[in-house]
């Protein structure tokens, strides 16, 4: 009897916590398609707010997508070879490099943004383009890609595969291309999902680095929360959810499938 009581109490508690987290999100999604939030659903469902969001903020949506994909590209080109090098060396040097790569996570985004502004603020062309934001995103998401690829390298005995390919005459580049990278695919995929999700949602860095002409989606969101009516802000948030949820679901499915270590996203 007491066990049932404890079970019910814990269940209730957990459900309350879940409600705390989900209800506002559900509310916001609903508000985004409701005609009038004050009067609730009775006022009718509409897509007019979503359309308004599109008219006002479609450039931010595109920009966020472009930056996310560009960040992915950069982290792939930088991160995969780096993870390979780190895995092969596995000594104090590589541990130090890993520390340095992970530092951007330990430092508040604000500080990093400030640092970038102080260093590159003078290069006005660069500073005013979306590439400036890309630089910040790349540095910030790189550790996730490197960690993810390193994890899979650890699991598949890369060294012996590399030696096997070498014994057959393949040059280091050929081995990397034909054997190392294809077999690291699960880690690369997990890392990619992470990088894109993080980049799409990044705010702390981006808020400091942006200009009125280089706004991203989260920056736009902040604007709308401050100045737009609730329905528009909610519709905008809804658009963000629609972009993010498939990525999250993919990560969960993928993590479950691989039964590997789940790396926490931001």
């Amino acid at each position, binding site marked *: 009897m007491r066990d049932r009581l404890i079970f019910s109490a814990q269940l209730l508690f957990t459900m309350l916590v879940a409600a*705390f987290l989900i209800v506002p*999100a559900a*509310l916001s999604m609903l508000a985004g398609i409701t005609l009038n939030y004050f009067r609730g659903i009775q006022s009718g469902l509409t897509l007019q707010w979503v359309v308004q969001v599109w008219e006002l903020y479609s450039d931010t949506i595109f920009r966020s997508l472009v930056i996310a994909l560009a960040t992915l590209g950069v982290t792939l080109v930088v991160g995969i*070879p780096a993870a390979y090098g780190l895995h092969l060396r596995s000594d104090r040097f590589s541990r130090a490099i890993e520390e340095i790569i992970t530092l951007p996570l330990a430092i*508040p985004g*604000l500080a990093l943004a400030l640092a970038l502004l102080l260093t590159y603020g003078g290069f006005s062309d660069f500073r005013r383009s979306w590439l400036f934001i890309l630089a910040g995103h790349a540095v910030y998401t790189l550790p996730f890609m490197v960690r993810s690829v390193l994890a899979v390298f650890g699991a598949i005995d890369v060294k012996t595969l590399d030696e096997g390919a070498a014994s057959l005459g393949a040059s280091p580049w050929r081995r990397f291309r034909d054997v190392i990278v294809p077999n690291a695919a699960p880690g690369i995929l997990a890392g990619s999902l992470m990088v894109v999700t993080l980049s799409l949602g990044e705010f702390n860095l981006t808020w400091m680095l942006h200009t009125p002409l280089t706004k991203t989606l989260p920056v736009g*969101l902040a604007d709308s929360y401050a100045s737009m009516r609730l329905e528009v802000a909610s519709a905008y*948030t809804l658009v963000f959810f629609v972009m993010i949820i498939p990525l999250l679901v993919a990560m969960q499915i993928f993590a479950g499938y691989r039964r590997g270590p789940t790396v*926490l996203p931001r």
Partner: protein
Amino acid sequence: MSKRAFVRFCFVPLAVLVTAFFVLPMARLVLVGASGDQGLRAYAAILLDPRYRATLFNTVSLAAATTIASLVVATISGLFLQRHRFLGHSLLVAMLTFPLAFPGVVVGFMIILLAGRQGLLGDVTLHLFGTKEVFAYSLQGLFLGYLYFSIPRVILTIMAAVEKLDPSLEEAARTLGASPWRVVRDVILPALAPALIASGAIAFATAMGAFGTAFTLATDVAVLPMLIYTEFTLSANIALAAALSVGLGLVTWAILALARSYGGTSIAAAG
């Protein structure tokens, strides 16, 4: 190309990216922090100047309260979810971890929807008690916001740790006559201690550096990231902002280093 040359080549893109966009800027930041009128003393200002000390105190208390609250919530719920399977279990877990991807701004908006001027709680209390409770823009609101992004993070780590617990230890305690509560207190919590410390440290570090939430809620409560922001953008007090940033960065990094020594490879991110 020889193997060694190839491996060295593998590091080149990394070296370029990290040096240009991290190492150099951070070095610049540290130097600028010491370049104001007060020079190096700016770094100590965070502790000496009463204004900044108050901000520091606010930030640390808020982060500490958030950490403790989310650890308690996560332990209760995490233990419960990992130990019981029932209809709707996966749904519950998904609901609890879904907010992981929300940026701080969105979290702020969530709190506004819950407890803002047009918030849900306000309507409920108006209905029940006649007065509309609005606390999104106060310390309580900020606390709720911080809780909102901390709980999912901590729950995931705790659940992973609970999965690794050795059930035979609890069974041994029960054969020796321990009540369920004693089993929790004497066996489970000590076994979870490393995970609790690690995820607690991460939650603390994240809360210390959180910016988006405070920004959206635009409270009067001063937290360190907001102070840095206003010093930089409104007061153009660049050196001070830089010094404060470096200080904050050092504190967060130190706490995370502690977390790593206890917990392994979980990662934090500034909220």
